[in-house]
């Protein structure tokens, strides 16, 4: 590892097997941050697509008919708490407290699953009320964005389950602090994406109705109907 007098001090608790790198940053950790940086672009585009088509659906159900802000506030809270459990798990891994690590990991998994449960409930309710993927611009952009987010969470749950199983089987220092730390980065990232989605799609966009008269979507629609009649 780097010497004590280099500009970049070594990480607090370098695992014994950690190799020296030119940047002083573990390569796997660097990789995770690079991935998270690129995932910002992925979600940025999906969110932008939602915002572009926001308020342009010309058939219902519209967000205001169907979005349930109180319930989603609860599920947002649950996801936030899972982030807290996750960070405690990372702290336990750093202290080498295997038992605590397993407990925090399972708590994170349970909270994440509850969040997914809320989403399954919501998607199903939408379907029953007539909002399918292809119903309108709102539904397709909404389902694409929140669906991909749910897929991220689901992947994270599987990842954490694997870590919990490994931790339960190998009391001798596996998974390493770094293993847990990297999974934690991913998990928190999924949480911050939801922070954005919750604000834009629920708190701000959740009360949208059909486009107002004079809106481009209405003009376009009138133009089409004018041609036919």
């Amino acid at each position, binding site marked *: 590892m780097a010497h004590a007098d280099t500009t*970049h*001090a070594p990480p*607090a*608790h370098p695992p014994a097997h950690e190799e020296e790198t030119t*940047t*002083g*940053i573990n390569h796997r*950790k*660097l990789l995770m*941050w*690079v991935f*998270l*940086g*690129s*995932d*910002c*672009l*992925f*979600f*940025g*585009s999906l*969110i*932008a697509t939602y*915002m*572009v088509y926001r308020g342009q659906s010309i058939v219902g159900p519209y967000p*205001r008919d169907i979005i349930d*802000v*109180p319930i989603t*506030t609860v599920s*947002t*809270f649950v996801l*936030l*708490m899972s*982030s*807290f459990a996750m*960070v*405690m798990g990372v*702290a336990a891994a*750093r*202290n080498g407290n295997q038992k605590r690590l397993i407990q925090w990991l399972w708590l994170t998994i349970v909270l994440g699953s509850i969040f997914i449960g809320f989403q399954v409930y919501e998607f199903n309710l939408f379907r029953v009320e007539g909002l399918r993927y292809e119903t309108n611009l709102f539904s397709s952009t909404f389902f694409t964005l929140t669906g991909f987010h749910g897929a991220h969470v689901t992947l994270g749950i599987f990842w954490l389950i694997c870590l919990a199983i490994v931790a339960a089987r190998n009391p001798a220092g596996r998974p390493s602090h770094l293993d847990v730390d990297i999974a*934690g*980065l991913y998990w*928190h*990232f999924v*949480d*911050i994406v939801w*922070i*954005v989605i*919750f*604000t834009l799609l629920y*708190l*701000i966009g*959740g*009360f*949208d109705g059909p486009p107002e008269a004079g809106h*481009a979507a209405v*003009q*376009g629609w009138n*133009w089409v109907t004018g041609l*036919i009649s």
Partner: protein
Amino acid sequence: MSTNPGQEAAMAHDEHAAHEEHAAHEDAGISRFFFGHVPEGVHGGLKQYGLLAIFLAIITLIEFLIIVPEGLQGSGVVIAPLVILSVIKFFCVVAFFMHLKFEHELLWQIFVAGLALGLVVALSLVLLFGVFRPTPRAFSEPRQVPFEHHVEDHHEAVARPLPDELPPPADPADLAPAAPAGATAAGASPGQTLFVGTAACASCHTIQGVAQGVLGPPLDGIASAAANRISGYSAEEYIRESIVEPDAYTAGTADGLSQDYQQGLMSATMAGIVLSDEDVEALVEYLLQLR
């Protein structure tokens, strides 16, 4: 945190020394953890993370309370506070839960770069389609040109007429080289001149080398096809009816065409175009040549 570097380093050193005496790396001291310079090797514990979690939960609650009054739901005034609150949440999670605050600067440079790119993409899209809102359909639909292989006449400019500024009668000499079988090389028939000219058929129908409309079915080979559209009709009768009474029969996929065409579209347009009996006869005669 705008102390000069020397001072800061000295402080950090002091703090570091003091810290080593008092605490295990578990506890960096709450205010120092959140606001101060935290010496290497110090991470939060239950106290710091618990406090942060409560703080984030409270922000979420406030966000929710903001939109409880019905008057505020969906109104513009809540946007700024909501965005600010969630940005605070966002950066708290990144800085402390993801401990980016304590990491090598390269890591946060990478993340901020990705975040910035994402924001730029999102912002440009929203500006492009949301603010400087073009109306692509109204603009491009009358101008669209179907893809065609121009083997011989690739130098010929393709000028599409707009429905509302109908083209002057095309110069038959221009059309002659590419005109289909049936049109004589010496010049276009009166039917063809009408077709591309005052009768405006060309704005909706395609005939190879003559017209490139897309709203109606292509009319190449209409003379053969017309005989099979309605049983009991000759090709001539069908074509005449298609012109004088377009709604009587609507061509579509059932006829082997690539799409179902819009009933009423042609009649709506033809209502504004006066065709004399001779004009209709000329058109029928012309279309009957398109075998």
